[in-house]
């Protein structure tokens, strides 16, 4: 189970990077970055999973006394929560800049932006 999830995450990261490197439309690049972001989050959550244990919430199924024997690692989940929110922030900024680039140049093809080439 862990290995399936980690392999999926790694494959998503590779596919996202491939899409970001080969596409020439800026919006498609941003979509590929989003996919790579999702892949990294899957890998991080898969690291914290332990076989046969349950989610880190103390209620009727997991009482307070036996918490450390029945609960998975809560730290990667806290990490990934932050990472998902910040990933949305980065995507929003990329989209705002892409819109501005379109307004100035009239095209979304990244091969046409040649002002920084010598």
């Amino acid at each position, binding site marked *: 189970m862990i290995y399936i999830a980690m392999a999926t995450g790694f494959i998503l990261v590779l596919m996202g990077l491939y899409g970001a490197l080969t596409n020439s439309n800026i919006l498609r690049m941003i979509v590929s970055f989003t996919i790579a972001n999702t892949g990294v989050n899957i890998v991080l959550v898969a690291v914290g999973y332990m076989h046969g244990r349950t989610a880190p919430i103390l209620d009727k199924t997991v009482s307070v006394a036996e918490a450390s024997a029945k609960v998975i690692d809560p730290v990667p989940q806290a990490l990934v929560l932050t990472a998902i929110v910040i990933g949305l922030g980065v995507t929003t900024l990329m989209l705002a800049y892409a819109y*501005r680039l379109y307004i100035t140049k009239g095209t979304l093809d990244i091969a046409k932006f040649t002002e920084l080439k010598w």
Partner: protein
Amino acid sequence: MIKRLSVSLILASLGLIFVALLLGYSPDEELNVTGRYYAEHTAEDIGAANIVTAIIVTYRGLDTLGEVTVLFLTASIVGLVLARQSKNTPTIQAEPAGELLNIGSRLLVPLILILGAYVFINGHLTPGGGFQGGAIIASATLLMLLTDPMRRFSHRLIAIIESIAGLFFVTIGLLGIFLAGGFLDNRFMPIGEFGSLFSAGAIPIIYSLIGLKVGAEFSSMLVSLSEAEDS
């Protein structure tokens, strides 16, 4: 040609590294030291039933402060980049939304707001919390935007909500220094009975403020994007 070759070379080497990581990984049998400390001491120290909430708000509260700051920066930069050049009337004439959308949104928007408030008020008991509740509140704003694209949202109201929520968040953190153990310590309010709504000290208040702030930020991002136009 060269570009294709270099791209496949980069991806192949990354793939090799990933395969090496995957093959050399063996999952743990017991919780490691940090996880065991959090699992054992959350109920008596913090009093929250949701361990992930306790970590985000109190144990690693400084990271949450950083995340809220990054979101605030993002919202202001989006508002800055997409600012309108002149204050003339918009040139896009959208047709009015149909009856289904009008009546449906009037029915659904209060329900969505209540659901969002429920999710972040009960963040310490059930899965949920400030960020999820804030995203749900932002989707209520989105529904209002879709129904009536010509409506002008007042940026001042959203900015006031966001600033006041952020200010109170930092104030509660500072109160934690003076009245209890450290920054963002929640024990200056009574821990209460485990599992009830008014328990876990100041965590419901902190998470509600975070939920309001995040909801206001996402709403202001959406409103900026929908009002952006060329002069």
